[in-house]
């Protein structure tokens, strides 16, 4: 595998380049900025974790890339440059040709993502038939192979089954297989393991990692679980209230979080805080969408906020892909960033 390191990925044209992406929902009570000026890149073969609480706009980033934002939502501004073409404003026909072929998506709840009244095999071959002319027998063979690689026992039988006859883990494997059927170069996985139990989660992560090494597919792995993403991702994007507040490689973020929000997230993971009698929590809760907050959006919950924070902080690039949107980044006294950079 080449070009996997984040630094290298920036040298050539990345697979996906998102610039100033803003997705707004117009409701009776005003405009909700679900995604508010998001910039990031995904390199070829790179796995990027998109982390944040529910409601932070992670899922909407995924849907925006695929052009699957339904009214009353719309992409208000920004570019989504994928393989050199801007997808924003692309006619629906062309977007449909990309979906499931070049960019795929896996949803959070495997129990609701498959049509309940259609056999698994049919749903899978439909995804192939939507993009290429392949004889039915070949298509079915391809589906069986992929299901097998994802650890589904006797895939032939499973293809004759209806979704409700499979367990949640099995169904999610089917969904992942469907997303991979046409060998896309990018898969947006929207919390694909959140609804599953821990063992299944670990198995699926292992299988996906193996398949990824084989195919070199890039992933945007959306999750609120830092532990999961740290096993899989090369790089992390931390989202809060529709904005990216911190980004960087997995190690630097996990070891030296800069944004108070990221720090709070990490502190609330039990293994990071073995001595604490009570896990520290980020005070307050994420702002309900549509509530405008002046300046830094994390300010009301932040212990380090000052009057400076009433201005809007920019995403400051520190070095390479490391960036933070904060006036008071929390440099660790023992491991200051400068030391880490040298």
């Amino acid at each position, binding site marked *: 595998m080449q070009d996997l390191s984040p630094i290298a990925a920036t040298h050539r044209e990345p697979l996906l380049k998102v610039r100033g992406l803003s997705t707004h929902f117009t409701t009776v009570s005003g405009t909700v900025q679900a995604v508010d000026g998001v910039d990031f890149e995904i390199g070829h073969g790179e796995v990027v974790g998109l982390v944040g609480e529910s409601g932070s706009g992670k899922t909407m980033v995924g849907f925006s890339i695929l052009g*699957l934002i339904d009214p009353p939502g719309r992409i208000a501004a920004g570019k989504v440059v994928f393989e050199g073409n801007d997808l924003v404003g692309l006619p629906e026909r062309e977007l449909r040709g990309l979906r499931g072929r070049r960019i795929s998506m896996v*949803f959070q709840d495997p129990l609701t993502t*498959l049509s309940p009244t259609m056999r698994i095999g049919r749903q899978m071959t439909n995804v192939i038939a939507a993009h290429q002319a392949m004889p039915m027998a070949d298509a079915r063979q391809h589906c069986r192979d992929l299901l097998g690689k994802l650890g589904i026992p006797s895939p032939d039988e499973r293809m004759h089954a209806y979704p409700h006859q499979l367990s949640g883990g099995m169904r999610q494997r089917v969904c992942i297989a469907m997303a991979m059927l046409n060998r896309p170069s990018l898969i947006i996985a929207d919390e694909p393991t959140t609804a599953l139990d821990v063992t299944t989660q670990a198995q699926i992560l292992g299988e996906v990692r193996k398949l990824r090494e084989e195919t070199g597919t890039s992933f945007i792995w959306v999750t609120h679980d830092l532990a999961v993403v740290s096993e899989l991702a090369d790089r992390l994007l931390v989202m809060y209230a529709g904005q990216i507040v911190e980004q960087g490689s997995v190690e630097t973020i996990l070891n030296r979080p800069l944004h108070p929000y990221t720090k709070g997230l990490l502190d609330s993971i039990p293994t990071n805080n073995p001595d604490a009698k009570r896990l520290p929590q980020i005070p307050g809760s994420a702002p309900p969408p549509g509530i405008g907050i002046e300046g830094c959006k994390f300010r009301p919950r932040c212990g380090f906020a000052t009057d400076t924070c009433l201005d809007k902080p920019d995403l400051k690039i520190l070095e390479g892909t490391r960036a933070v949107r904060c006036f008071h980044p929390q440099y660790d006294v023992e491991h200051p960033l400068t030391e880490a950079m040298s």
Partner: protein
Amino acid sequence: MGAFLVRLLFQGIVTLLVVSIIIFVGVFAIGNPLYVLVDPSAPAEVVQETLRQLGLDRPLHEQYVRFVLSALRGDLGTSYVHALPSLELIASRLPATLELVVAGLVIAFLVGVPLGLLAGYMANNWLARLISSLSILGISLPTFWIALIMIIVFSLELGWVPTGGRGDVATVLGIETSLLTASGLAHMALPALALSLFPLALIIRLTRAGVREHNRMDYVKFARAMGISPQRILVSYVLRNILIPIVTMMGLIFGTLVAFAVVTETVFAWPGIGKLIIDSIKVSDRPVIIAYLLFVVTMFLVISFIVDLITAALDPRIRLVKAS
């Protein structure tokens, strides 16, 4: 599944009993059948004799038991007007009504599902609005008025089809049907169309609502995310999932249409059980009225029983439970 069946059956029987009591009390207690059977100016002993013969001098609950027992033997009395057992009379008129109802349902399904899909898929454009408005009219306007307008336009002005009657019938397996003769079909066209309007409106609304509901669901969004075409999603994903409630509704509405046929049959002089009951009410032919009411109520209960069973069979989730 067994307990489910027993509960359904029990509910049906209770409902039937309640309705039969209402009909019984209504016919035998409120209206006095004696004066329909006996000339009110007849001598007192004739009246007494008839009273005894009919068991009308007995207490009400005893009369009810007799009524139920003879009803169970299939004896619901003899029509005063037609001098035929009332059940037999209904049986002879039933095929005409049934074929009208089936034709109406088929028209409603074939027209309603595509229109509903269109209206649901197009969300808020003018065509979808038009379809929705028409479906509201179809539900709220009195059927007889629409039927009259249809007669004026298609029969009187355009002269395409006759104004009423059943036309020639062909006999298949001992059952007369209008579906196999040209004249029969011509006579049937308007009444079937008129009868189809109400279920048509319901099917449009149900389909439209179903499409809108399902379009928001994850499996549709996932299919879209896989690049499957909107047409394919609509027809082979969404339609497949909303077909179950549509078919259920069509089954349930079957009985309603048999009752609704009263209006259509009267307007178009269609010789089915609907016209029979109206004619019977007008001349107080009580045995026929009772037989009709009990027949339709029973049919209603049987249909909802069957629909429950079919729904259970159609839904693969329930089918699995049965198989394992």
